[in-house]
């Protein structure tokens, strides 16, 4: 691909990388070395982002949740509490990471390390700019789903290795939950892939750039289903059964302390950012924003969108109470799955209409947008009403009665005398 802009054009850091590759090829470096060096550069960049974002997110989450709870978040350490994540990290590192004696030592220590791997791998396929993709896989979307599905295994590893009856029960429950929510997620992403015709994330962003709109306008239902499914996959409120069922049956990381637990906590944050990034690139246009990326670097816009989605996730956490486990399963199988299937049906219909009759995009896409939005609204509202009918048997407010309607005990029985006025 020819370089259209000089290497110092920071609106797209891929320019610098391509320039470096060319320079290396000019001195006749073998192809493998060029590939490895450029890849290393990208990987270092991604890891830098992941590390920084973990630190920043701890601060962002705590301050935002504090604000939602009518209080300030941490504000003692550093201005506005900005050094709080550093303090947290230091505290966790100097804590003794206990390993129970009868726990499965190797698996116990390995679980928090291994759980980081899918989280970081997810960042490899994200398009940060027009030429800034670390690994432009043809099957990017499927790759992300595969990484998500390995999470359930590692959760089980952690729960089993703790040698704790309750950790194991919690882990089994979480596995059932994660597996159930993979299906609506896959189906919603299937709709996106069918609509855009490509599975690679940069391809989907290019589709949105080509047709000059965000996929959010065409696939609102897919966005809703994927967002809700991901909230559960991330073990966040309103589905944080894994960690907050610690009221009774402990979560899978109850026996972890010190930096091992710190890794689980960090992974939750990194996963949240990864999912926010996926939502941002699939539905919100990634680095493309109606031409704004001519002036503002695309990756900065992308990071902004990531944090907008992350704000949404924090908002869910601060506001909503928790589901019960069986209600959560019912939500996946009876609510999200039928809607995802209807969505796919509709998308297939639309794509067929578009291709068969060879219509122009400008005529057909606004119609699709309107139809999809109407259907999304109708489905979500209607199906929710149907599902919630059993909870609506009684009114939602208490009934006001002017006076007591229970007969008083007979006067003179006992000492129930009236108080002296």
């Amino acid at each position, binding site marked *: 691909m020819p370089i259209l802009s000089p290497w110092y054009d920071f609106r797209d850091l891929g320019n610098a990388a391509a320039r470096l590759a060319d320079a290396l090829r000019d001195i006749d470096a073998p192809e493998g070395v060029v590939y490895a060096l450029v890849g290393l550069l990208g990987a270092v960049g991604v890891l830098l982002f992941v590390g920084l974002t973990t630190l920043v997110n701890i601060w962002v989450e705590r301050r935002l949740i504090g604000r939602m709870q009518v209080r300030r978040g941490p504000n003692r350490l550093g201005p506005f509490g900005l050094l709080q994540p550093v303090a947290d990290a230091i505290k966790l590192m100097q804590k003794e990471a206990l390993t129970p004696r009868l726990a499965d030592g190797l698996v116990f220590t390995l679980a928090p390390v291994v759980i980081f791997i899918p989280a970081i791998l997810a960042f490899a396929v994200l398009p940060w700019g027009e030429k800034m993709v670390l690994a432009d896989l043809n099957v990017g979307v499927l790759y992300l789903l595969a990484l998500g*599905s390995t999470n359930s295994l590692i959760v089980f590893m952690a729960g089993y290795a703790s040698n704790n009856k309750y950790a194991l029960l919690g882990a*089994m429950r979480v596995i059932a939950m994660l597996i159930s929510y993979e299906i609506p997620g896959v189906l919603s992403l299937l709709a996106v892939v069918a609509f855009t015709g490509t599975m690679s994330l940069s391809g989907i962003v290019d589709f949105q750039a080509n047709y000059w709109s965000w996929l959010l306008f065409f696939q609102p239902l897919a966005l809703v289903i994927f967002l809700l499914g991901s909230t559960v996959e991330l073990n966040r409120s309103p589905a944080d059964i894994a960690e907050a069922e610690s009221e009774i049956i402990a979560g899978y990381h109850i026996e972890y302390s010190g930096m091992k637990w710190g890794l689980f906590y960090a992974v939750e944050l990194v996963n949240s950012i990864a999912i926010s990034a996926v939502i941002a690139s699939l539905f919100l246009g990634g680095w493309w924003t109606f031409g704004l990326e001519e002036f503002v670097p695309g990756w900065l816009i992308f990071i902004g969108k990531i944090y907008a989605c992350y704000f949404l996730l924090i908002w869910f956490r601060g506001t909503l109470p928790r589901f019960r486990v069986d209600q959560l399963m019912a939500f996946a199988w009876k609510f999200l799955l039928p809607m995802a299937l209807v969505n796919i049906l509709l998308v297939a219909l639309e794509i067929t209409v578009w291709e068969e009759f060879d219509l122009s995009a400008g005529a057909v896409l606004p119609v699709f947008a309107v139809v999809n939005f109407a259907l999304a609204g109708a489905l979500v509202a209607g199906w929710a009403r149907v599902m919630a009918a059993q909870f609506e048997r009684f009114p939602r407010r208490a009934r006001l009665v002017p006076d007591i309607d229970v007969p008083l005990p007979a006067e003179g029985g006992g000492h129930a005398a009236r108080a002296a006025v």
Partner: protein
Amino acid sequence: MVIGFWALAGLTVGAAAMIIVVRNLLHAVLFLILSFVGIAGVYITLSADFVAVVQVLVYAGAIAVLMIFAVMLTPLSARDNAENVLQLPALVLSGLVITGVTFVALETDWRLAGRGEFDSTAEAIGEALVSPFVLPFEIASVLLVAAMIGAIVLVRED
């Protein structure tokens, strides 16, 4: 390229060997997962990106969980992967099989195809599934639905 293949092959075969060596049955399942991931890597060296990702998604994501649940349902006493009488005959038999397969592999006159252009495997597989192979595809789907319904019927508490 060749380094990649040998490393992945070593990982896969090593993990597979550890499955039968290790004592704890759950450790054996974990090594099985590792071998699945190794196979996914081998698929990638063959440029079959779709199959590799589906291997991770289906095998390491779902079938491994199935096996873990199966192992968890066995009583603790039966979870020992310990020595038993059949180890020597099994070793002999597998030795014979390996020798046979290696001999056949080395003696066959493989016709090496060039690297050549390949189109996006996902598209190719998708086309194949709905045009020439649509009937097996649909039959497999019906089979899966039957399995799901059977599972639900089995666990219903009535």
